[in-house]
């Protein structure tokens, strides 16, 4: 919550200087932090300049030929860009809606489990997929959905289909498949945040609500939900900033050349044409572009959130 510090001042002294004096302990604490972030985060940002020159490792950035916006325009004006953008937005869109909501639902469902031991076991089990690398997880998925795989066997035996379906070759289904697999992998892990937020709810609030006549659903909606709304808004705004990132490893494993039209996203393209060939400039240009777009989106969404509710990033 960002309530502005009261700006009344009787004297002409700037509120900043006043704060330096009055809140000097906080400022003192900030100093090492600011030094840290300057060294580890801001100093390396000179690397972003790579996007504007024809960079070769071994030469300093200022020694390389300046090319201006060449790599940006090459990428954005390239033939593939509309398709890449479409795929990226489609998959991250699905992730920001369905994929975003699922861990929340799961947290609520978990919260409703009666038995504490069961709850703990379920919660522990739910994050196991997070630890299986994409190489392994992807291989499992491809084996399951192969034309002669188990899923097809089951569907044939159950008489639900006449001919085997090559799931992995159907580009139109790729986005759905990707979303489902992503949810499966991240559900338990992401729900940890919501669970921890939920456990901060004061029990008295539940009691009061129950007395007021709220049933279980009512309690969940009117007591639990508002408590985690700040967390939800926070995570969602941060997610919006990453809207141009829509997976990478998953596509290389679950996707194949037949579905490439649907899974090729900005990152995979940039990797194939940039990094893999050793063209750092192209990769940096794409990354800078994503950063700018993401950051601007965050600023906008943040402003909206601040006006609409109390919750915002800053």
């Amino acid at each position, binding site marked *: 919550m960002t309530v502005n510090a009261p700006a009344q001042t009787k004297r002409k002294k700037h509120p900043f200087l006043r704060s330096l004096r009055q809140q000097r302990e906080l400022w003192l604490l900030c100093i090492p932090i600011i030094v840290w972030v300057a060294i580890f985060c801001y100093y390396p940002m000179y690397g972003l300049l790579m996007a504007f020159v024809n960079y070769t*490792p071994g030469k300093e950035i200022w020694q390389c030929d300046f090319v201006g916006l060449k790599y940006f325009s090459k990428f954005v004006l390239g033939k593939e860009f509309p398709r890449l953008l479409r795929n990226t937005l489609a998959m991250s869109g699905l992730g920001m809606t369905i994929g975003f909501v699922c861990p929340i639902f799961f947290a609520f469902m978990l919260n409703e489990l009666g038995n504490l031991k069961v709850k703990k076991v379920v919660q522990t089990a739910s994050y196991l997929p997070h630890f299986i690398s994409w190489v392994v997880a992807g291989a499992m998925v491809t084996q399951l959905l192969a034309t002669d795989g188990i899923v097809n066997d089951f569907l044939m035996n159950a008489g639900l289909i006449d001919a085997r379906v090559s799931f992995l070759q159907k580009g139109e289904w790729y986005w759905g498949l990707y979303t489902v697999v992503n949810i499966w992998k991240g559900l338990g892990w992401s729900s940890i945040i919501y669970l921890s937020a939920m456990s901060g709810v004061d029990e008295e609030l539940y009691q009061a609500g129950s007395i007021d006549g709220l049933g279980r659903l009512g309690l969940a909606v009117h007591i639990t939900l508002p408590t985690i709304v700040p967390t939800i808004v926070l995570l969602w705004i941060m997610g919006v900033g990453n809207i141009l990132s829509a997976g990478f490893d998953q596509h290389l494993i679950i996707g194949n050349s037949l579905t490439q039209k649907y899974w090729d996203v900005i990152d995979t393209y940039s990797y194939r*044409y940039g990094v893999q060939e050793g063209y750092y400039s192209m990769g940096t240009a794409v990354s800078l572009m994503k950063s700018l777009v993401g950051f601007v989106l965050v600023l906008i969404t943040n402003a909206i959130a601040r006006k609409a509710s109390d919750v915002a990033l800053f």
Partner: protein
Amino acid sequence: MFKKTLALIMALALCLGCVSAMAETNAFGWDVPEETLKISLFFNSGEFSTGEEQEVGMAAMHDYILEHFNVEYDIMTTDGDADEQLNLLLASNTYPDIIVGASTINRQKFVDQGRAQDLTDYLPAMENLNHRMGDMIGLYADENGRTYYLPQYFSNLMDLPDYSAHIRYDEWQEIGSPAIETPEDYFNALNAVYELHPTTAAGEQRYTLGMYSQGLPEYISGYWGLQRGWKVNDDDTLTYWTHTDEGKKMAKYFNDWWRTGTMDPDSFTNTWNDLRTKISQERVIGMIGGWWIGYNAGHEIWSLTDEDWYEEKRFIQVGFKDEDAENAYVTLKNNAGGSWIIVTDKCENVEGVLSWIDFILSDKGIALVNWGMPNEVKSYKNPDETVCIWELNEDGTWKFNDTAKQQLVTETWDYNEEGVFGANTGVYAIMQYQGRFDDGVHCLWGNQMWYSENKWKGIMFENMDGTIFDGTALLFESLTMDEDVTFAKTAVTDAWKQYYPQAVMADSDEAFEAAWAALQEAVEDAGIDVYAAYRTENYQYNLKLMAD
């Protein structure tokens, strides 16, 4: 008088000093230097992995080389992406003396920035190098005749194929051991097997053909007379397979096959691991790919897991040629290499380093860094026993160990134990000559010798004879690719990977024609003219270079 004696004594002392300073030559034929020669290198092979027995072997090899040669290796490897690591080393100026295995692009970075040393003047002294390479050594010089890099591996075994088609020996015998000389023969043979055994013993559906890597059209088009996907026209220009009749014929052949419904439906989405599983489950009757896939996925597994395994239950390689094709250029060997060795500006003893490299190109040098340490080596599995791969005598004569040879020839060699000899990670073999020794028998790979004594290798060579050609002029990249060409190359690969499967999987003739046209359009959009222009220019340049 006194002065004369002094002078005489000094001269004598000098002579004696010379004699003792004269390097002792060891059994390998290497002049052991006074001062330890440091070989500090970066091994550009990513995801470097070592099992325990390999680590033990590598450490033993390091000490062995230090003790017997007074040469000390200092090896840097990387667990992640090697190119990325090399670029980091370059950007931070912390790279070592030698880079082993740099890609062409990365090599050029060093050369262009003056970080690669000029080796030209040292080359004539390298006897073994010149002996092995002959005139090819001229290929690595730039326009001014200066040489800044050398190939990491060069030359090839011209009787060892790279790619082949496969069929199971026992099943082939069952259908009457027909001759397979054309693509149609291969199709008919596999179908004949399918008639007899449409399902596995476990009742699962079998496929007549399985593929991986999107069908490898660039390589397989060799059966129809194209060279690595290029048609070499009479005027020495190149046309890409998508725009040739031969390429279309190949696609039609597979399309007809696809429409019979007996091909693996996941042929174009299979990775090698997927196909391997299917092969090992005996669900695939034939496949086209590397010469070894039938080994790796077939009898090497069955001999260990199948109680009723018999020797004939294995894949053999078959070669064939389309009737219209002049030659089946299935295996094109690039003898001039594709990855590079650079001696960087950090190296202070270029002559020493090159003399060591020259040594490891001699017979005994190759034996040492590719087969491993000679004479008895402690086994890893059974520490009380010793194993041996080759024997070296004091007087310099050597021979391959008989027991090891038998194991290799009868294919009972334990590959999981070879690490202990110290060589199978490849880090010590800076430069590899991949051809045959002068004696015509030995080479650097233990399992590619004495073909005549192994029945199966014999069959392979008989069948694949006539499919192996020297493609150095076509494949060797002597002109550097610029950004636009690299871009076009990636785009063209992207294009055929998406559109070629559509053509093969078309369900009618009209659909096939449409898909083929779409493939051509996609490849054109991707910039095939840019890429083809480069390859043509490179090819013609090589022809000229090699003619001199």
